[in-house]
C-alpha cells in the first residue's frame, strides 16, 4: 500500500482537475484536466488568449493576487489540494519564471539571497548564491561582479538570474511563462540547454509561443485553443495533451494538426 502511494506521488507532481478560471464574470479558461509528471518538462502551446498563462498561474496561486480572478476546480500538488496550502508556502515549492526578466533592483547577490532569506534559509548564503548561479549557468559570467546591480545584465543574463533566483529556494516545480519571448536566439538556446539540466531535479512547466521550442525541450505538450464566446470574448480550453512527439507528428485532433503545422495561430 505504501509503495503504491509513493509510486503515485513520484509520478505526478501536479494534477489539475476541471480547472476553470473567471475574471470577474468572464470565463477565461474552461474545464482543464491535466497531469504534470514529475521530473519532466511539459509545454503549453496555443494561440494568444487561449489561457495557457492563466492555467500556469493557477499552479502557484498567482491568480490569487488578481482581485477579480476566481479559480474553480481542484489542483493537487503531491496529492494534496493546493487550496489547503498557505500560498506563501506553495510558492516556495512551486517556483516561477516570468515572461519578461524581472530582477529586483538589487545586486546580483541580493537577488538570489532575497528569496532564501525570506524563507528562513539557515545555511551558508555565499555557497547558496554560487550554487544557484552555477545551476542557472550564469556563475562564470557574473562571479566577479556579484555586488553589481542585476539590472546591469543583458536580457538573457537577467532571465538566467531569475531562474537562479527561482532555484535558490529549492522548489519542486518551476513554472516558466514564455521565458524566452524577450530573448535573442543565443540566449534562448542557453535557457533551453539549462532546462534540460534542470529536469533531473525539477519538474518544469513551460508556456511557449514557439512550437520549435516546445518540440525541442518538452516531454509532453498540451495544446490549448480559444473559442469565441457569445459575449464577444474568448474562452480557452485544452484541446489535446499527449507526448510531445505525438502532438507534433500524429495528433488526434484536427485543430492541433493545423496549429502545429503552422496553418493558424
Amino acid at each position, binding site marked *: 500500500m505504501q509503495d503504491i502511494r509513493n509510486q503515485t506521488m513520484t509520478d505526478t507532481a501536479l494534477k489539475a482537475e476541471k480547472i476553470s478560471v473567471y475574471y470577474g464574470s468572464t470565463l477565461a479558461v474552461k474545464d482543464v484536466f491535466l497531469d504534470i509528471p514529475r521530473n519532466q518538462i511539459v509545454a503549453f502551446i496555443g494561440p494568444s488568449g487561449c489561457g495557457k498563462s492563466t492555467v500556469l498561474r493557477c499552479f*502557484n496561486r*498567482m491568480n490569487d*493576487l488578481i482581485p477579480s480572478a476566481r479559480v474553480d476546480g481542484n489542483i493537487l500538488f503531491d496529492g494534496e489540494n493546493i487550496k489547503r496550502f498557505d500560498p*506563501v*508556502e506553495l*510558492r*516556495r515549492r512551486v*517556483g*516561477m519564471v*516570468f515572461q*519578461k526578466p*524581472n*530582477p*529586483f*533592483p*538589487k545586486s546580483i547577490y541580493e537577488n538570489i539571497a*532575497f*528569496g532564501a532569506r*525570506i*524563507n528562513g534559509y539557515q545555511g551558508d548564503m555565499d555557497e547558496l548564491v554560487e550554487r544557484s548561479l552555477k545551476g542557472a549557468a550564469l556563475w562564470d559570467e557574473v562571479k566577479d561582479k556579484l555586488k553589481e546591480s542585476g*539590472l546591469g545584465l543583458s536580457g538573457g543574463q537577467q532571465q538566467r538570474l*531569475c531562474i537562479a*533566483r*527561482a532555484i535558490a*529556494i529549492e522548489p519542486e516545480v518551476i513554472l516558466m511563462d514564455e521565458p524566452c519571448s524577450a530573448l535573442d536566439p543565443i540566449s534562448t538556446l542557453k535557457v533551453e540547454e539549462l532546462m534540460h539540466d534542470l529536469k533531473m531535479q525539477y519538474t518544469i512547466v513551460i508556456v511557449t509561443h514557439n512550437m520549435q521550442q516546445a518540440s525541442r525541450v518538452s516531454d509532453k505538450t498540451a495544446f490549448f485553443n480559444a473559442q469565441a464566446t457569445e459575449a464577444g470574448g474568448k474562452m480557452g480550453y485544452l484541446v489535446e495533451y499527449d507526448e510531445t512527439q505525438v502532438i507534433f507528428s500524429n495528433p488526434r485532433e484536427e485543430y492541433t494538426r493545423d496549429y502545429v503545422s503552422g496553418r493558424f495561430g
Partner: protein
Amino acid sequence: MTAELPLNDIAPGTWKPNRGRSETIQLIIKIICGAFATISILTTIGIIGTLIFEAFSFFGNLPSELSKDSEQVSYMQGVIHFLTAGRWTPLFASKQFGIFVLISATLMITFISILVALPLGLLAAICLSEYASPKIRKVLKPVLEILAGVPTVVYGYFALLTVTPFLKTFFPVEGFNSLSAGIVLGIMITPMVASLSEDAIYSVPQSLRDGAYALGGTKRETVWSVVLPAALSGIVSSLILATSRAIGETMIVTLAAGANPTLGFNPFVPVMTMTAYIVQVTKGDAPHGTIAYQTLYAVGITLFLITLALNIFSFWFVRRFRQKYD
C-alpha cells in the same frame, strides 16, 4: 496589375498640399512659443540679477556700518561677521548681522516639520498604494489633496491658537515657538510627501511584486524589501521637494514662531526665520536704500542658495539612483 492601383487614375489637381502656408504657420507658432519661453527665462534672470546686485551692495555697505571710530572693518571681515555673528539686529541702534541666527531658526523648524511629515507622509503613501482597497483609496486620496489646498494662513492660525495651547499642557512652550510652527508645517507638507511618494511607489512595475510573491514572499516582505527600495529615489526626491517647500514657507512661521531672532536650537522659545524676517522688513519698517532694506536681499539670496542647493542635490540623487524599467 497597374489598373488595380487607383492612385494612377486620379486626375491631376485632386491633391493640393498647402506646404507654403503650413510652413508660415509653423514659423509663427515657433516665434510665439520662443517669445514666451524667453519672457520666463528673462524674468528668472532679472530676479536673480536683482538679488545678486542688491546683495553685493549690502556687502559693500556692511563694513562702514560695522566700523566704529576706533577700528576700520574690511570687506572680508564684513562677510565673516555676516556668517559668524551671534546676533541679528539690523533694525536696532547697535546693528549686528549674524545670518546664522535666522538660518538656525529656519533649519530647526524645517527639521521638526520633516520629523512629522516623513513618517506621516510615507506611511500614508504606503497605505494608499499597497494596502488600501480601491474604494478606500478613491476616498482617501482626494481628502489628502484637499489638505494641500488649505491656505497657509489658516495653518498659521491653527498652529498659534490650537497647537500651541495644546503643547503647553506637555512642554514649557512660550506663546510663539518653533515646535508648534514645525509640527503644523509638517502637517502642511505631508500631503506633498504622501502624494509624490505614492506616485513613486505606484510606478514600481507589477512584475517586481509578482517576482517577490513568486519566491514565497509575504505582502510585508514584498512591500518593504522590494517595492520600497525600488521606489527609493522617488521617495527621497519627494522629501527634498517638501523640504524646499518648508524652508521657503512664510505664513505659518511668521504667525506661530514669532519675530525674535534667537540663536540656538531650543524649540520652545520664539525665533525668527529668514522668511519671517523678510515679512517684517517688507511690512515697511525699513526705508529704501538703507542697510536694513538691503538685508532683505542678503537674506533672500541666502534662502535662494539653500533651496537651490537642495534642488540640485535632489536632481543629482534622482539621476544617480533611479531605476530604469522598460
